[in-house]
């Protein structure tokens, strides 16, 4: 067979064609050729499958660091599978490569997730005019703790007795100064409640920056409630006593306004049903109800909005005013601005001018459970 080698038995000239291809792969071309040759013999039935897999097993291991061909199941005692430590069947290089690929994959997905979902406005300053962000300027110097706003909110939204979407906190600091602070949801720009919600029921509305709950999909896990630093969330612990009496869906048809159904989380909404109507846009029921001009609701990014004008006017009248936002140190970027003294870290709640109990508000959802007590509790005089 002069001039002919065994490669030519595959196809004359095969070696010349195959070699550059095999070399380009970066692996041993001789092994490649031998394996190809044996594959041919296997097809012709000259060697058994078992022999075929065994023949180059060691060479495969040396070259690729692993041999994933079915060889290993053919039951040879020396095959690497029998070794108790299977890592040894894989070269360190291959294992490291695998690990490297895994780590790179992790980095890539996290980078991608950040690009796609995570960029906060600090990193990407919005181009053009500032987005609409509804918020409030609360003048603590005007508030006298009459609780009219609380009653108005409850009346409007039909929330149950134990909830205080608007809650006027009366507190005393270490110098004995008593003050009242109306607390709504802060409709944070970096809201932890939105971040933690497992189903995306809690969301920030692009249109006007309201933080809302989609009552149709909330599963009632109460994670938003524990993650919010302000304690503004109120769960619907039992079947609500009141029926929905306002148009509760927003402009996109999402059920976000009014009191939530049983087993779902609610909180101060900044009246989305009003923001969606031309005539009532830019007003909130609590702010309208306040007899002392303490609550000013509107777009915090618009210098002509009612809260911004009020702020400007007060600054001009007094020459200097002190303002603060609540718990800014948590990085939530709240959108309610208070005029007055920041409560000191050691300030503690006291009974206000109008005690909240007098309003017929109850302390906890437990108090309003409806339905029969189970027989064994009634037998012992109830819960």
């Amino acid at each position: 067979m002069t001039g002919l080698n065994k490669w030519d038995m595959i196809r004359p000239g095969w070696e010349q064609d195959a070699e550059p291809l095999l070399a380009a792969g970066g692996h041993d071309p001789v092994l490649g050729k031998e394996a190809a040759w044996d594959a041919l013999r296997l097809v012709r039935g000259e060697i058994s499958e078992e022999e075929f897999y065994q023949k180059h097993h060691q060479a495969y291991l040396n070259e690729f660091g692993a041999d994933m061909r079915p060889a290993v199941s053919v039951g040879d005692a020396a095959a690497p599978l029998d070794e108790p430590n299977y890592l040894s069947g894989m070269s360190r290089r291959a294992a490291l490569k695998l690990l490297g690929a895994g780590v790179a994959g992790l980095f890539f997905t996290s980078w991608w997730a950040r690009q796609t979902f995570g960029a906060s406005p600090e990193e990407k300053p919005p181009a053009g005019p500032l987005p609409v962000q509804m918020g409030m300027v609360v003048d603590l110097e005007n508030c006298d703790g009459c609780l009219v706003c609380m009653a108005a909110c409850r009346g409007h939204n039909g929330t149950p007795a134990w909830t205080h979407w608007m809650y006027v906190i009366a507190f005393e600091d270490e110098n004995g100064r008593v003050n009242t602070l109306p607390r709504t949801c802060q409709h944070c720009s970096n809201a932890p409640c939105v971040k933690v919600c497992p189903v995306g029921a809690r969301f920030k509305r692009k249109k006007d920056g309201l933080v809302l709950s989609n009552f149709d999909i909330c599963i009632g896990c109460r994670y938003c409630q524990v993650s919010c630093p302000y304690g503004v969330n109120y769960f619907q612990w039992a079947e609500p006593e009141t029926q929905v009496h306002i148009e509760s869906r927003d402009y996109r048809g999402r059920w976000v306004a009014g009191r939530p159904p049983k087993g779902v989380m609610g909180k101060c909404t900044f009246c989305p049903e009003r923001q969606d109507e031309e005539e009532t846009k830019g007003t909130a029921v609590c702010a309208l109800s306040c007899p002392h001009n303490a609550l000013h609701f509107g777009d915090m990014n618009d210098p002509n909005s009612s809260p911004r004008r009020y702020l400007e006017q007060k600054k001009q009248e007094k020459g200097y005013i002190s303002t603060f936002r609540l718990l800014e140190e948590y990085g939530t970027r709240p959108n309610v601005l208070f005029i007055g003294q920041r409560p000191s870290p050691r300030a503690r709640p006291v009974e206000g001018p109008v005690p909240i109990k007098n309003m017929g508000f109850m302390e906890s959802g437990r108090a309003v459970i409806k339905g029969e007590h189970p027989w064994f509790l009634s037998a012992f005089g109830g819960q």
Partner: protein
Amino acid sequence: MDEQTRTRHILKTLGRPTPKYFIFLLLGGAGLLWFLYAWSYQLQYGMAVTGLGDWGAGGGVPWGIYIGSFIWWVGIAHGGIIISASVRLFKLEAFKPVARMAELLTIAALSVAGLYIILHVGRPDRIVTSIIPAFPWRIHFSPLVWDVTVITLYFVMTGTYLLLTVRRDIHFLQKKLPAVFAPLYRLLLMGYHPSEDKKVERMVWWLALGIILMAPLLLHGGVIPWLFALLPSMPGWYGAIQGPQFLSIALTSALGAVLLIAYIFRRAYGWKDVLPDSAFRSLGSALALFALFFLWLQLQQIITGVFAPPLGVEESTAAKLHQPLYWAAIIPVGLVLLYLGAQWAIRSIFSITRTVVAGVVAVLAVFLEKVLFVVEGLMEPGFKLYQGVPGSYWPSWVELSSVVGAFSFVLVFFLVVAKVMPIVEVVEEEAGASDGHREMAELRLRTTPLGLRRAEK
């Protein structure tokens, strides 16, 4: 003891049930029924039937014993599978007799944990319809979704792991197994061929590796504590220590639970040979180690919480230290550590009963600590203007019934499984391995991370 006697002893569980067996089954069944009644009550009247409430102006806590139990059961599950995986990976021979019990415990405990999530949420009817469509984007943010994901993954991994190892046993024992369950065995053995054992062994090894890597880094040292540790709103929760702290609790409670289960089986079937003293001794020593970790990490938190802490941490630490129930959790763990430590040093005072009692005390103590952790964290929020709003939390009868239900479920689970499959692995993993492999295995034994002694031959 030769293989055959051992196998015969192991198969005792599969025999005809005794009257005592039925009594336990009835008890478990009654507990489950009671729980179902309580649950239906909750479904009918809403979460108001729990002792939970809104924090802040409501003065209550929105997360209570349901979430506390959830973490605890997940901890047992994770600890259990770590025990079992370490047998395969590090050839911890001393734990080998309890490996399958630990796997079964993992399955049971994970089921209970999943049930607690369903119990906890206000709208269980929406779990599937809400979570699945939102999953692809919420997975990037919500620690709760991380939890659900990893627990599901874990359930699949543990199930596969158990199934793979059980098939070999069932095939090996075929004729000796109760004929009534033949269809089940046929199902489990679908496509089985003895030649797969080698490959299966390899798969199980990789699964064990995955479990050992994932459990501490991702699970009980990861997503479960992150549920709390990532929230600055509650100073009692926030911070990097919760990862190791949770892991120490997981392992403590899993070791305690396995001790108890092994003890019950040993008593019931006279398994002095199948579950030798050495297994209990090793479990006890490991328990002491993790109890020590637990206490050490508690100490870290107390010291940083009282020396020069920021206000929120100061108040939450003070509240914790003034809570008698906190000490009712910490002191018993300390005593358990003292006793097990002494037993480890002075071998002659070893007693199985005392070891098991110590284990049970430790498990209950960390349960109390975990529930307190959840509740106290919420009672002491960073926002101090609510402090002093009247309110308290005590689990209602519905919530307490869930605890009864959970234990009953695990009891019934073990009663049923014990009649269906061998509760201890029959086919020795190394059977048929060459001498060289045995040497390898022994070499690795001497270098096990826990330094546990190999069971006497």
